[in-house]
């Protein structure tokens, strides 16, 4: 409990792919007074399960409470805490930038640095796509902000444990 305050952490949750399960998980966060920084959900290698990836920040108490309270939900099969050092984290962002001939060179150099792709081109705007760690996405956004962002959309973090294991083989934390 005496850990440093408000570390960011990622929780992977394997849930039954059923009506209303996502609501059960998110409603529990509201009920216990915890904030979600990012949440992604999608089907998995097995169609009867969905995988929810939740990023939140909090102290050691919040982290232990969240893991315990999620684990109590009946449609939850597995819960895994992904420590930053052991996990691969990725996020995708789509950014629409003003298509201004004066900007072209700066946009292209930004795209080059961040290995971004132009996925849509129109007279008014460029739409670019970048994948990377959340830090990389933050840095990209900082860099292209002066070029005139029209709108952007981030997916939120998806994460997997490094190495050959899977969440289904992981030990319960308790």
């Amino acid at each position, binding site marked *: 409990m005496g850990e440093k305050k408000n570390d960011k952490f990622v929780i992977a949750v394997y849930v039954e792919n059923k009506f209303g399960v996502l*609501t*059960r998980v998110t*409603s529990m966060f509201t009920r216990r007074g915890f904030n979600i920084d990012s949440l992604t959900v999608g089907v998995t290698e097995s169609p009867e399960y969905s995988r929810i990836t939740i990023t939140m920040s909090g102290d050691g108490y919040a982290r*232990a409470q969240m893991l315990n309270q999620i684990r*109590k939900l*009946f449609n939850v099969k597995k819960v895994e805490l992904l420590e930053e050092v052991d996990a691969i984290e990725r996020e995708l962002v789509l950014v629409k930038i003003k298509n201004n001939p004066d900007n072209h060179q700066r946009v292209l150099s930004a795209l080059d640095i961040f290995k971004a792709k132009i996925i849509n081109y129109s007279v008014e705007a460029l739409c670019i796509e970048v994948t990377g760690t959340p830090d990389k996405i933050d840095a990209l956004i900082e860099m292209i902000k002066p070029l005139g962002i029209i709108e952007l959309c981030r997916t939120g973090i998806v994460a997997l444990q490094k190495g050959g294991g899977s969440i289904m083989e992981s030990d319960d934390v308790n």
Partner: protein
Amino acid sequence: MKLTGAQIVVETLIEQGVTDVFGYPGGQVLNLYDAIYEAGDRINHILTAHEQGAAHAADGYSRATGKVGVVIATSGPGATNLVTGIATAMLDSVPMVAITGNVPQDLIGRDSFQEIDITGITLPITKHNYFIHDVNKLADKIREAFRIAKSGRPGPVLIDIPKDIQTATAEYEPCAPVEPFPNRMPDMEKIERAAALIDSRSRPFIHIGGGVIGSRAWDLVTELADKIDAVIGCSLMGISAVPTDHPRFLGMQGMHGHYASSMASNDADLIIAIGTRFSDRATGNKAKFARDARIIHIDIDFAEISKNITADVGVCGDICVALREMIDRVHEANHMDWMDHVEDLREKELSFLVDEPGVLTPLKVMDAVNRRKSADTPVATDVGQHQMWAAQYVRFQKPRKMISSGGLGTMGFGMGAAIGAAVGTGEHTILITGDGSFGMNLNELCTAVTYHVPLTIVLMNNGVLGMVRQWQTLFFNHHYADTNLDTRRTDYVKLAEAFGAVGYVAKTPGEFEAALEKAQSSDGVTLIDCRIDKDEFVLPMLPPGGAIDDIITVKKGV
């Protein structure tokens, strides 16, 4: 055999051992009630005055018997009227199954007449809930609901059944009653550590909660206390787990706990908490709770360990197994100094007990109840001052006899709960209530009369919302904002008679004793309107945010 969904519900309830259900019919459960009508000789349905009363009755039934309580309501307002009852059961970990009807699936989501998303509404106040989409899965979902309700840390489960599922047909095969999921076994290494910690301490205090009743661990608790020379205190939910007159039992601790119990928990160097969540009402200011003590916490719910109070050793798992293993590992101990200290605390506690002769005081009411009730009498309460007086002074000899809303503190709980307890046990039940709480659900008098429920209602009538008034006296400069009820002019004797019950007024100890004797010898419903002074206090009291050291033992400000 091929049955309708409605018939499957009733057959599955019967198969699961349900003999009594509480409820209220309506448009979207007509089919279900038709199936209940057909099965009338095999299942007993009790019609209440209001769905809230039915939910509290199912809850009281469960608390008094240990069985799963069942309540049925229609869609929309029927379902929302269950909400307070379900939340009450959730906060006190009571196993309950609530069944609601809903509009047919093709009308769902269209704001149809009496349509409400009750699974959405009850998401945070149920252990789990279901919306049934497929009649073929109906029986198994009901079985699963019973299993979840009674497994591990019990709780309420709601099943919402749209009307088209009740009319559709499916194959039904009876099954045996479901067994709870096997309890998690405690980690033996943790037990070893707990035992070593127990052996190293000299002022042990065992704090028990409702989990000791749920897991039937009461004998193991006293066995452990005897072996390690500990005293025992409890939360409100732990009352009746250990007999009140057990020599090691100090009573409830916390905000309105017994002086000796609260002080001993404060002075202990070891707290062994069993089946309890360290509610703020039991601990006072958490930062200052038991500052010298190491904490061992035993609970079936892993999420409770270190949730409210950080445990030095957290033992998660079956309480009975954990206690058995712990008792076998600890050494027998004698803590003479500790016992002497506790004895001093008990003597001091007695000195605070002032009672005015000749006046009908809360203490005299409870004393008379103690003399008139038997060891098997369930005592239900509502919420407020009378509840705390009952918690402090009513003496219990057997578990499951104190039926009270602890976690949610639901005023209006008592009437339904007392009816449920009486139906479940067949015992003449005593309801201790106040004029505030009773006013919330007194409509259930008609239920008690209809079903000849043997019930004595001890109405502690002080013409005020006494608990709130006490706070206003102490902390709000005597501003009695909306807590005076004396302008209501309710004649409770006439009220009882209007419902077909019997009513008495008691203004003196003698009148109360005589009325109680008549009530207890009757098989029917009796209400005793006990006139209590409006400035009676519940003492001791920990001021809000205060620690045990800040305990108020003497009446002031009046």
